[in-house]
């Protein structure tokens, strides 16, 4: 089952839309998802950082993704 991933800021611009579907994400680690996204959208590798949030929290590379999780791509933040 595909998992939808929210994209913000420059990540949204690189991907070309605010949601990207990853068919194979269920059971995948966050680190693997990052590699998959960087592979699919090479411009992501040129960012200063690229974090993944799982259910609204910054996730570590080892976190396992499950169907139903809310995922988001977090490019370098610049609020304030």
């Amino acid at each position, binding site marked *: 089952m595909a998992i939808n991933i*929210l994209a*913000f*800021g*420059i990540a949204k*611009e690189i991907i070309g839309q605010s949601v990207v579907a990853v068919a194979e994400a269920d059971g995948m680690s966050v680190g693997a998802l990052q590699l998959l996204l960087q592979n699919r959208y090479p411009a992501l590798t*040129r*960012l*200063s950082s690229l974090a993944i*949030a799982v259910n*609204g*929290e*910054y996730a570590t590379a080892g976190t396992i993704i499950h169907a139903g999780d809310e995922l*988001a791509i*977090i*490019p*370098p*933040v*610049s*609020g*304030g």
Partner: protein
Amino acid sequence: MTDIKILSEPLNTEACTRWVMTPDSGGINVFIGTVRNATKGKPVVRLDFEAYVPMALKEMQKIADEAFTRWPLNKILIHHRVGSLSVLDIPVIIAVSAAHRAAAFEACRYIIDTLKQTVPIWKKEVFEDGEIWVAAHP
């Protein structure tokens, strides 16, 4: 007590300041971010802010909670605006009240410094001849 919001209307300095005042406070420190007319000498037309709202609110709450554990504070307010802002508009107001001023100053500084590092909000600087997502590239 905290008041943490992401808003698309203009922020209200007076209301924010009034909200943090308490009878047991002796000092209030307020940080107001304003949109500057230039970045590295290049005129800025506007700034566009976007947020991952639910996560941004959670991260701002974490910062406020941490500030309450580090300093003896009475109230913390964090209001961040999103949308398209012009020069002199206010993207962020942080207000902190405490019995003594040192805690209010230090906590307010800590909150804005940490907000800029961890809260999922992004700004795009729009110039006459192009635009750039701030901090996106090394």
